[in-house]
């Protein structure tokens, strides 16, 4: 079966090195999906919420909030997710309190292999698969703004790691469910965001390998903050030596081409090393980065998805 287009899947995961623009791309992907008329939920799992802020809205917190028509966001936090999950499985509030609201359980949350990640991923999984509204899925698409590379990979590998240590019980059963969603190219796609710089590019190459060897369905690689060349080398040479009146614009042109040549350099390397669709995302010179910037990013990537 041919793989469906990225936004036609159930769960799109966005990961990459810290500071590459994961939240921006998550927001832009969600906006692109919402524009297609799909009811879309963005889940953020890192400590500080960003997506709602990008749309100029107050933080959503752990309650789902609407940002735009068809576009919703939620901040998934371990403690609340744990509680919801435990309650779902345990049914009785008292039993939950007894087992989880004590010092031992606090310990347990930290020590059990990535229990916090498990319950957070579990909640995202639930929204993508079991969250129903009048007999049909509540969400057409769930976008997960995942943690940065190292943590992101740990985060997505959590079901697998957990299943190695824990082989029985309701958690193990749910882990199988998560694992099968995360490995299914019909329902899930994992995107990488990177920058035209050495460290982010190298990390993207390694992340791509780990993700593919982990069996995660490959979504596009977004090369963010991309500068397209605008001047020929001859023009730069002429202007930079064109005298004091052209010093400012000469320096600007030279800087631009320096960044454009880095962009082209890493585009070449990534294109060769990473077997994914490579989508350059232009750098936008916005005085304040907000809704309009997200709209521009969404428009820039829409055609390539």
């Amino acid at each position, binding site marked *: 079966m041919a793989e469906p287009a990225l936004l036609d899947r159930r769960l799109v995961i966005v990961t990459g090195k810290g500071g590459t623009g994961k939240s921006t791309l998550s927001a832009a992907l969600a906006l692109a999906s919402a524009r297609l008329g799909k009811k879309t939920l963005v889940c953020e799992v890192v400590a500080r919420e960003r997506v709602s802020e990008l749309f100029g809205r107050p933080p959503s917190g752990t309650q789902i909030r609407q940002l735009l028509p068809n576009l919703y966001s939620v901040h998934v936090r371990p403690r609340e997710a744990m509680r919801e999950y435990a309650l779902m499985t345990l049914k009785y509030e008292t039993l939950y309190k007894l087992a989880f609201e004590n010092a031992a359980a606090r310990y347990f949350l930290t020590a059990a292999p990535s229990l916090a990640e498990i319950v957070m991923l579990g909640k995202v999984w639930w929204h993508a698969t079991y969250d129903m509204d009048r007999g049909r899925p509540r969400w057409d698409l769930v976008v997960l703004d995942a943690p940065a590379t190292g943590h992101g990979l740990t985060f997505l590998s959590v079901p697998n790691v957990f299943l190695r240590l824990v082989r029985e019980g309701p958690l193990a059963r749910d882990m199988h469910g998560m694992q099968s969603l995360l490995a299914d190219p019909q329902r899930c796609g994992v995107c990488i965001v990177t920058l035209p710089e050495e460290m982010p590019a190298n990390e993207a190459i390694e992340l791509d390998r780990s993700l593919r060897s982990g069996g995660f369905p490959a979504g596009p690689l977004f090369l963010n903050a991309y500068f397209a060349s605008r001047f020929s080398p001859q023009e730069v040479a002429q202007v930079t030596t064109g005298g004091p009146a052209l010093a400012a*614009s000469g320096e600007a042109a030279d800087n631009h081409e320096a960044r454009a040549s880095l962009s082209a350099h890493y585009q070449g390397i990534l294109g060769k090393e990473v077997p994914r669709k490579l989508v350059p995302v232009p750098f936008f010179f916005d005085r304040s980065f907000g809704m309009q910037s997200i709209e521009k990013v969404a428009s820039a990537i829409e055609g390539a998805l």
Partner: protein
Amino acid sequence: MKRLAEVLRGRKVICCVGSGGVGKTTTAAALALQAAMDGKNALVLTIDPARRLANSLGLKELGNEETRIDPGLFAQAGLQPKGEMWAMMLDLKLTWDELVRRQARSPEQAERILQNGLYQTLSTAMAGSLEYMAMEKVYQVSTSGRFDVVVLDTPPTTNALDFLHAADRILDVLDNNAMRIVLGPMLKAGKFGFKLLAAPSGLVLRTLARFTGSDFLRDLAGFMVAFEGMFDGFKERAARVKDLLSSPQSAFVLVTGPNPLTIQETLFFHRALADDRIATAAVLVNRVQRDPRRHGGPDNVAALREALQLAQIKDGSGTPPLSERLCTTLIEQSTLADLDRREVERLSRTLAGVPLFTVPRLRKDVHDLAGLWQIDQHLSETGAD
């Protein structure tokens, strides 16, 4: 107005702190280079350097080995250091193993722990583990007496500034009384030399076991038994590490970029340090866009067209015409410079009293000694008062 080198003079440990992607590693290496140039034996302890930087410094991958940067490389870069520059890449697992071996009461105990199935997961996968081991390693090398100054490139922490608390948190996990009580019957079985076969008993334990299965609890009990009696040693050592880092011998340098989100995180780090009564020694803003308008000259299409004409450069070639492309580019880069300036000013206002240094965005990635030295040149310009 002081140079950064003066601000950091006499410190034995320098921790570069900041969010991911701001150039901490490069900064840490540049600071170590500066110290070596000034006649110190300087070690940079890094977590995950860019491959080209590591290669160009002749650093081996991982292994916790101190590597002296080849004096030949300095000569190639036209530098004559009065001291020595060393570098080391932190190996998380190896550092844990070393610590366990050092603190164990017997080699047998150490082996039992190292062989435990959960040890690896717990030691390397627990949040804060990398921070804890980075601190541990800094303590080890800086008390070894082999270096005048150790510069630490801290792990890219996203959540909070965990360096000073990572050890407490992890030791609390490993030696948790509440968990001991819950696991009680299983622990006893272990102590008397039975295989850990006791089934989870008690309501709490049985409920937890429903989630995780009893195998995991059994492994956990085994792990706790193996660690028995070692915690005091661990805690005492962690306390000494903390003392060193909060003493005047250590300096924390905040590294940031001009991006508003990064600046927000930097201010957060600053407050977290202040909460621990640690003063930020300096803040360093990397990759600040220089303003092309400082050269003056025309900044609109008509005037640029004229200037091109005067310089006898053809405007018509290419679409849109050169003058228009120049004008767009000039406006874009001026916008960036304005944004960066605004952020740096905001940072400097908020951190009044903390020396602030800026490094302009360089035309190329820094990946060798010459590039690091270029950064040092910018840092030796005077910063804020």
